[in-house]
């Protein structure tokens, strides 16, 4: 709330007369316009890369509902990404139904899984929550990996495809844009709703939240299930885009990478995960051009961010804005 008042104050001083709300709408429209127009002037690699970036951004945004808003650091979020993708793929492959039926089935399965895992995990906090979600995540990973007669094991699950209409890269790009757009809007409204504010209250002081009548467990479980649901949407989109689901998608490294992206982008800002996903994809695509040891450089980037810019690129943006606005640096 304070931030908003401050932003409005800054806007007045700048003479922009733009409220944050108008600015957000303008920025979203601009981004949407660029994304809608992109296939007109970009080649296939960019279309493919942007499709991947959008699903990645959705995955990290769903995680940020837990990490940034509710203060619950999950190391097992990949379980829902993978379940969404695998179940959608399995349903499509073995029941022969269309993608538009298989995807909701995958999302439903992952949501139920999130309900079960969440039921156990939210009982503990801090380091215990990290380890419990990590254990559940690796349990799910082990099942997808070892149950190879069903999931394909190391070779991955293949043998399903999007419907003919969406087979082309550009068509699937627009489909992804539509689905991710709707999900991002839903998540944005959710974070701005009383529900989102209650999560923040729990994050900042669980005891006080309890004492003012917030049902902490119910709120945390809801956040966990909703986060799982949106992660599953990302997983289902990814599965049909690549016409396969692979076991790495469930690995703890996938969960860890999502946290890294969150850190890069900035977790205290709704669009932080989007900025992080773009930055990560750009690093991911450029660094391998001059070295195969790209994880080494990613490691250095993580250390630099953790030590020197803990609020991510969003934090740097805020800092610059404030410096420009009133000439005084702020920590």
């Amino acid at each position, binding site marked *: 709330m304070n931030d908003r008042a401050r932003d409005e104050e800054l806007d007045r001083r700048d003479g922009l007369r733009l409220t944050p709300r108008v600015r957000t709408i303008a920025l979203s429209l601009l981004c949407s316009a660029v994304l809608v127009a992109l296939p007109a002037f970009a080649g296939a690699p960019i279309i493919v890369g942007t499709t991947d970036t959008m699903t990645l951004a959705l995955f990290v945004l769903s995680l940020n509902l837990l*990490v940034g808003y509710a203060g619950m*650091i999950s*190391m097992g979020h990949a379980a829902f990404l993978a379940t969404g993708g695998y179940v959608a793929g399995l349903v499509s492959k073995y029941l022969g139904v269309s993608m538009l039926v298989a995807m909701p089935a995958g999302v439903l399965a992952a949501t139920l899984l999130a309900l079960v895992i969440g039921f*156990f995990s939210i*009982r*503990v*906090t*801090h*380091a*215990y929550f*990290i*380890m*419990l979600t*990590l*254990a*559940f995540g*690796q*349990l799910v990973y*082990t*099942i997808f990996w*070892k*149950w190879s007669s069903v999931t394909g094991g190391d070779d991955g699950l293949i043998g399903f495809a999007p419907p003919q209409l969406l087979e082309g890269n550009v068509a699937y790009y627009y489909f992804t844009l539509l689905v991710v757009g709707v999900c991002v809007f839903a998540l944005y409204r959710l974070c701005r709703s009383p529900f989102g504010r209650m999560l923040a209250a729990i994050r900042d002081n669980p005891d006080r939240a309890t004492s003012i009548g917030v049902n902490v467990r119910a709120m945390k479980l809801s956040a966990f299930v909703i986060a799982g649901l949106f992660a599953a949407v990302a997983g289902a989109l990814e599965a049909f885009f690549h016409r396969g689901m692979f076991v790495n998608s469930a*690995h*703890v*490294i996938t969960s*860890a990478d999502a*946290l*890294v992206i*969150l*850190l890069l982008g900035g*977790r205290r800002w709704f669009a932080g995960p989007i900025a992080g996903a773009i930055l990560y994809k750009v690093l991911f695509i450029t660094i391998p051009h001059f070295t*195969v*040891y*790209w*994880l*080494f450089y*990613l*490691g*250095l980037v*993580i*250390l630099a961010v*953790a*030590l020197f810019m*803990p609020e991510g690129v969003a934090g740097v943006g805020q800092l610059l804005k404030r410096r420009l606005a009133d000439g005084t640096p702020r920590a």
Partner: protein
Amino acid sequence: MIQLQIVSGLVSAAILFLVASGLTLIFGVCHILNLAHGAFFMLAGFLAFTIASRFADSAAGFWLALAFAPLALAALGALVEVALFRRLYRADILLQVLPTIAIVYLIGDAVRFFWGLEPLRVRTPAGLDAPIAIFGALFPAYYAVIIAVAAAVAGGIWWIVFRTDWGLLIRAIAQDRDMAAALGADVGRIFTSVFALGIWLAGVGGVLSSPIGGANLGTDMDIVVEAFAVVVVGGLGSVGGSAVAAILIGMLKGFGILVYPQFALAFVFALMALILVVRPTGLFGAKE
């Protein structure tokens, strides 16, 4: 048949204990959840390969590796603590966990750079590949060495923590960091030494397990996740709990393979989840 499961269960318990006790010490004292613990373990395996292969034909190579590789890692651990984690003790938990992931990436690529992608075989120390009888079944004598070293280390840690001044300081700081500091304990130095000790333990585990599993990329995350299971079951911060839990989980793995070979690891995670639900602080953990 049963003996085979018991002894192989004990061997994996020994390795798990070495890794998990370091993890739990570092968490109990420094409050850092060190996801990179397995990376140090993996690095120890590769160092063991290099040192042992320098002395290919003598038995001394492996023992030199066991003596020096963990020490080198302990020095590296101390360096990491001073240069990195010391700046993060007051940061929130995400900012403490992510740098440990960064170290996983850094060590992983360093190993790829210096040792390549292929798994490397570390030879069983000469004279110890002959089979001996344990409980009436035949095992490589080397298995007995692993169990003995782990037991000796467990005794050593107990002695350090409960019988030395250093241990007294470690326990005081684990209990109340600020009070210990106010009473004049050099918290920074203790943190560095505990970090070094914890990484040394991972190093011993890595060197000891290398003749069995070889030096492989990918063991870094596998071992740390299993060690988490041990730490959670035993109770975060409790070294004794880690010892009991390591035996429990080692046995569970050993016998789980009999029942359901593909999902032996799933039993471990299921046990961990069960413990966290019925007793969130683990078997021997203090209240959160």
